[in-house]
């Protein structure tokens, strides 16, 4: 009953976001939102940017890459040097080079994979000035790429796709910062902490129990972590920590924040290409996957935990509660972690590693589908549009016509670019997982043995190459091997898709529009949705099924055997 009502409220909230947040985002990227134009103009002046001047796709891409490289350097330097910088009440020393590199890449690529425990590794300045900043910025970069790609579809015979600096600044100023600012107070009101007071020392007068409690500016980081589909927690326990996610309300709000921008961007897409039905087709595809994964995930976590049963607990009436918080229960925990793995967020309010085999498989496969259901902020939309191009290409092959999408002829160049963007993630995941399973530094880092240990490794590379950042956290990733290989996966998974997406924006923008005729394959119909679903399932399924069978499926079919 509670679960049903939670889902109803979630979907009503998402429907409102789609319509109204979508319309607001459309206005932002059309340049019609101006309530902060004073500070906005000041920034453009400091940058020497003319907000009316646009860039070619090459210049847009170059700006994005150079900016990201500088962001990695700045993030790296701040956490390396934190021992010499202020706002460090616990006197934490600088982070090691390999870990700093992994972390800097992780936050700049919107991954937020964390090979460290926040409360014992990062100073307040690192959490705020280094990591939180990149949570805003990487999210804004992702949305900028999606908007640039939409412009490529929407425009005809245009040599430009927008201005990177303008898109970047507008996303931060008008979208991410205001929502985060307001939501911070809702989270604090519920019990999330926001303080610079340093750790609290507790002595319980009843039984003499003593405790030191880590504190910090948590809520301001927590909300952008969800809104920007980042996922990196202030604390090691992430969204399970009561100071990050104190109540059932903050838990549901987290899920809404995570899903709001990725789903709403399909509204922007539909409106900008001049046919909202095109946006509806894309969002319907995303929703189909999201609903199935949510239902199976919640169902699986209602089931019993085999090891707990064998340990002597006959009935697990509340479902699989190992690794889950009492105040959330199994259903809300499953919903949160499914939403987070379907969006490249990667925050968790329960231990992924302790999910049932099928529940864990839903988390893993949600990422393996390419993070398009609905995917991360921006990245979900630009990746699913690459899938859509492959889908119309296959549709065109079936009837022997040159395919079109949104009035643009899809020719060899576009199909090649889209195929590259779609395949770069599976190749990265499978190659790096393969390497890690045959070398000692790879296999020695797993906590669990047997198929579950293999899943920990597969999960790590799937998560990083998809810029998700969640973990089957039994893996001890803070080794030079995993830090560096992981950073490679994150860089390829981010820029290996962004560059093709922007190239596509460029070539599509230059094309003229083909008038719709009787022979045009319509892309706003259930038939197209079916084709797009098929392409996503086939690409994900064919590439990953063998690996899945060695991990979660082998574990599920082991009939209660322990490893």
């Amino acid at each position, binding site marked *: 009953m509670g679960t049903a009502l939670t889902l109803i409220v979630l979907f009503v909230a998402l429907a409102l976001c789609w319509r109204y947040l979508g319309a607001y985002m459309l206005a932002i990227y059309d340049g019609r939102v101006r309530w902060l134009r004073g500070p906005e103009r000041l920034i453009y002046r400091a940058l020497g940017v003319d907000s009316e001047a646009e860039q070619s796709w090459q210049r847009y891409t170059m700006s994005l890459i150079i900016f990201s490289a500088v962001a990695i350097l700045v993030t790296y330097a701040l956490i390396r040097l934190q021992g010499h910088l202020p706002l460090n009440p616990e006197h934490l020393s600088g982070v090691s080079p390999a870990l700093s590199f992994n972390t800097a890449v992780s936050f700049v690529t919107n991954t937020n994979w964390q090979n460290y425990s926040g409360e014992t590794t990062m100073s307040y300045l690192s959490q705020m000035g*280094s990591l939180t900043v990149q949570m805003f910025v990487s999210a804004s970069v992702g949305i900028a790429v999606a908007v640039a790609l939409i412009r490529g579809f929407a425009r005809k015979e245009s040599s430009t796709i927008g201005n990177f600096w303008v898109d970047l600044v507008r996303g931060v100023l008008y979208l991410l910062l205001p929502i985060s600012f307001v939501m911070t107070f809702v989270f604090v009101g519920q019990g999330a902490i926001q303080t*610079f007071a340093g750790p609290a020392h507790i002595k319980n007068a009843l039984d003499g129990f003593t405790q030191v409690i880590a504190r910090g500016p948590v809520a301001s980081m927590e909300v952008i972590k969800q809104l920007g589909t980042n996922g990196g927690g202030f604390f090691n326990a992430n969204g399970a920590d009561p100071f990050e996610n104190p109540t059932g309300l903050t838990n549901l709000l987290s899920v809404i924040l995570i899903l709001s921008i990725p789903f709403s961007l399909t509204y922007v897409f539909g409106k900008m290409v001049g046919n909202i039905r095109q946006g509806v087709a894309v969002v319907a595809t995303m929703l189909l996957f999201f609903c199935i994964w949510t239902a199976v995930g919640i169902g699986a976590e209602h089931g019993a935990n085999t090891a707990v049963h064998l340990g002597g*607990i006959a009935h697990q009436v509340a479902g*699989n509660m190992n690794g889950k918080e*009492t105040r959330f229960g199994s259903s809300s925990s499953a919903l949160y972690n499914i939403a987070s793995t379907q969006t490249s967020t990667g925050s968790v309010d329960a231990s992924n590693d302790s999910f049932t085999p099928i529940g864990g498989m839903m988390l893993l496969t949600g990422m393996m589908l390419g993070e398009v259901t609905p995917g991360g902020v921006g990245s979900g939309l630009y990746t699913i549009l690459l899938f859509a191009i492959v889908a119309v290409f296959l549709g065109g092959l079936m009837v022997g016509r040159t395919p079109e999408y949104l009035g643009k002829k899809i020719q060899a160049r576009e199909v090649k670019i889209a195929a590259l963007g779609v395949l770069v993630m599976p190749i990265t995941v499978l190659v790096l997982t393969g390497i890690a399973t045959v070398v000692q530094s790879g296999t020695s880092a797993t906590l669990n043995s047997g198929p579950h240990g293999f899943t920990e490794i597969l999960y790590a590379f799937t998560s990083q190459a998809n810029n998700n950042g969640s973990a089957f956290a039994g893996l001890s990733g803070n080794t030079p091997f995993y830090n560096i290989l992981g950073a490679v996966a994150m860089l390829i998974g981010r820029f290996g898709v962004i560059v093709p997406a922007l190239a596509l924006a460029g070539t599509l923008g230059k094309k003229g529009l083909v008038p719709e005729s009787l022979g045009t394959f319509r892309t706003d119909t259930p038939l197209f949705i079916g084709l797009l679903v098929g392409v996503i399932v086939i690409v994900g399924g064919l590439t990953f099924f063998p690996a899945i069978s060695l991990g979660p499926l082998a574990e599920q079919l082991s009939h209660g055997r322990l490893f």
Partner: protein
Amino acid sequence: MLVQLRRSIIVSAIFFVLLGLVYPLVTTGLAQVVFPHQANGSLTSNGSTLIGQRWSGRRWFHGRADAFNAMASGASNLGPNSKALEEFVAKEVRYYHHLGVNPTASLVTGSGSGLDPDVSVAGAYAQVGMVAKANGLSSSAVSRLVASQIVGQQFGFLGSQYINVLSLNEALATLVRHTKG
């Protein structure tokens, strides 16, 4: 190229100040004024109601089988088919049997944070006999105490109902004081 590099550096500096300093400092300042209790960790004289503590012996209600190290949060991360998890649970079950309690799943498993401040309603009721006997109270009085501490689902549908272990034990201490005094 050099233009973009210069812009990257300047915009990084602006974002560092705006998002890395102004945003967290302003939200902290306002939060400290509007919600000072919550913003500092919901601290009471016996600890934080949001951060779980370890309770031992028969006189107090126990919570989840967590480490309760508030400087190192996190779950056990043991998988559902893990031998180590089976051994952990079996050890916890033996411990509760020794205390005369027939434990529920949530009493013998760890949480997601390792700091769960709450226990399930069934988990609290399971300990009523032990706590009543150790404190010289009647089982019905302790049962009523547990019932009075149930926190329902938020707004009637969000999350799960639970009992805050610190609040329950504080109420228990008051009950013991009144009964004996």
